[in-house]
């Protein structure tokens, strides 16, 4: 099977600041976040729980408005969810339509975009193959394991042919083995399509294993503590890459940043 190689989108955050207002006192969560993600790059975002990772993700996907600063996707300001962007959320049990089969779930966004039937079918089938769900087309999400449900969510995201894929702790609540499989799936997807990929995680190993670069957020309000390049080669391998001495160093560096020690 051949995949048309697409070019990823370029994402730029300029002094992105978020203060939640209402519900009593204001909450200043993000403070002047700056970052550039190049086309096709894989960026992990890590930080302690509650630091504002989900908030940052919601801002750059246009689901929540910024308080100040701006987010540019290929130079265009993001104010609502952009066309070229797809999201995979942490809550896989809640993010699929339980009344639709796997196939219909993946197809729905295409259908509502009025994409022709043949093309829809082709895209759905190739997405199902890509994530390794063949044979499950007509099952319902609740008949699938957590890992499989998350694969459906990824397939749904891929079927819309995004140029940037954004994931919020997508593997946080699946078992260890499934998690490794899904990590490799995400790497493969990035390779196959060349899409820019952002992944939020609180797992430092996962952040390093997957990324070209790791963005570390700390503090209240959160700021960028460091941007750490990951010079590990490709393809990554769950055993070899993790055993590499650099892997341990990077991991330790991030760990200390998050713990606030050096």
């Amino acid at each position, binding site marked *: 099977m051949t995949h048309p190689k697409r070019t990823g989108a370029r994402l730029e955050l300029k002094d992105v600041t978020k203060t939640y207002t209402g519900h009593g006192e204001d909450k200043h969560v993000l403070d002047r976040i700056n970052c550039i993600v190049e086309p096709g790059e894989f960026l992990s975002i890590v930080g302690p729980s509650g630091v504002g990772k989900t908030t940052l993700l919601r801002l750059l*996907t246009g*689901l929540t408005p910024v308080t100040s600063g701006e987010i540019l996707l290929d130079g265009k300001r993001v104010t*609502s*969810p952009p*066309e070229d*962007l*797809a*999201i995979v*959320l942490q*809550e896989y049990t*809640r*993010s699929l*339509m*339980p*009344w*639709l089969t796997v196939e219909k779930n993946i197809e*729905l*966004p295409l259908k*509502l*975009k009025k994409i022709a039937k043949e093309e829809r079918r082709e895209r759905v089938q190739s997405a199902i193959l890509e994530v390794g769900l063949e044979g499950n087309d007509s099952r*319902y999400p*609740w*008949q699938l394991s957590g890992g499989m449900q998350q694969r459906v969510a990824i397939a749904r995201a891929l079927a*819309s042919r995004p140029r940037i894929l954004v994931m919020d702790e997508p593997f946080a609540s699946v078992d260890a083995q499934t998690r490794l499989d899904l990590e490799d799936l995400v790497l493969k997807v990035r390779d196959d399509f060349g899409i820019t990929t952002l992944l939020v995680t609180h797992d430092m190993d996962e952040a390093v294993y997957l990324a070209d670069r790791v963005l570390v957020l700390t503090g209240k309000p959160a700021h960028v503590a460091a941007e750490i390049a990951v010079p590990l080669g490709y393809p990554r391998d769950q055993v070899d890459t993790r055993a590499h001495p650099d892997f341990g160093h990077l991991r330790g560096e991030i760990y200390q940043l998050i713990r606030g020690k050096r």
Partner: protein
Amino acid sequence: MFSLLRRFLISSWLVAALLLFWWKISANSESYFWPPLGQIATQFKTNWLFANVAEDVVPSLKNLAIGYFIGAPCALVVGAHLGLSEIAQRIFSPLVNFFRSIPGVALVPIFIMLFGIGDESRRVSIAVAVFFPTLIATIEAVRTSDAVLLDVSRSFKFSSFQSLWRVRVPSGAPMISSGLQVSLQVGFIVMIVSEMLGAFRGLGAFTVEAQQSFMIIDMWTGIIMLGILGYIFNVIFELIEKRALRWYRGQKGLTT
């Protein structure tokens, strides 16, 4: 096959026992108002299998069907849109609450006044009475849609119309369905009462007429017929619901 039989036995033995009890205890009844069940059964056969069905049952059911299939879909559409808008809800909720606290049957005299004692007034009464339970359920169902699904809709750029009918309404279908069921029951009651108030035909009319002319056995057959019909409607509704909401039962891990 065996389990089907068992299910049937479990769900029907109490009814059978009660009927048997009624049969026994009324067998030698001399009371004018409590005739032997045996006599009622014989008369039931004469009245309803299937002599007067076309004349007295079919028109009633037609009114119910027309009223229901106008009232309920309207409630679905209006409720879905009210559920979307907090402002619309605040404006309309006093009105809705006022009208829904009026029992459906109390509307019948108004519509008789407005539309006469023909079928129109009965159909309108049914449609209006059916409207409110579905309306309330739909508003609530649409209002309480899962935030994650709505984020997904937004991220895929569904229009608000699309996310209403493709996400909010289907995900609220279980709640909407209970509203539809209550509507059906209310519609059935209004169908009967509307015929009791000045109709010439229909099951309700038949039953009061029998009572007023002291044909007590006929009255009993009418009441039993109403019971059977109401029961059948509920069974049919639940069968359809079970099919349509298979996903919901599956998701909840329900097996029956």
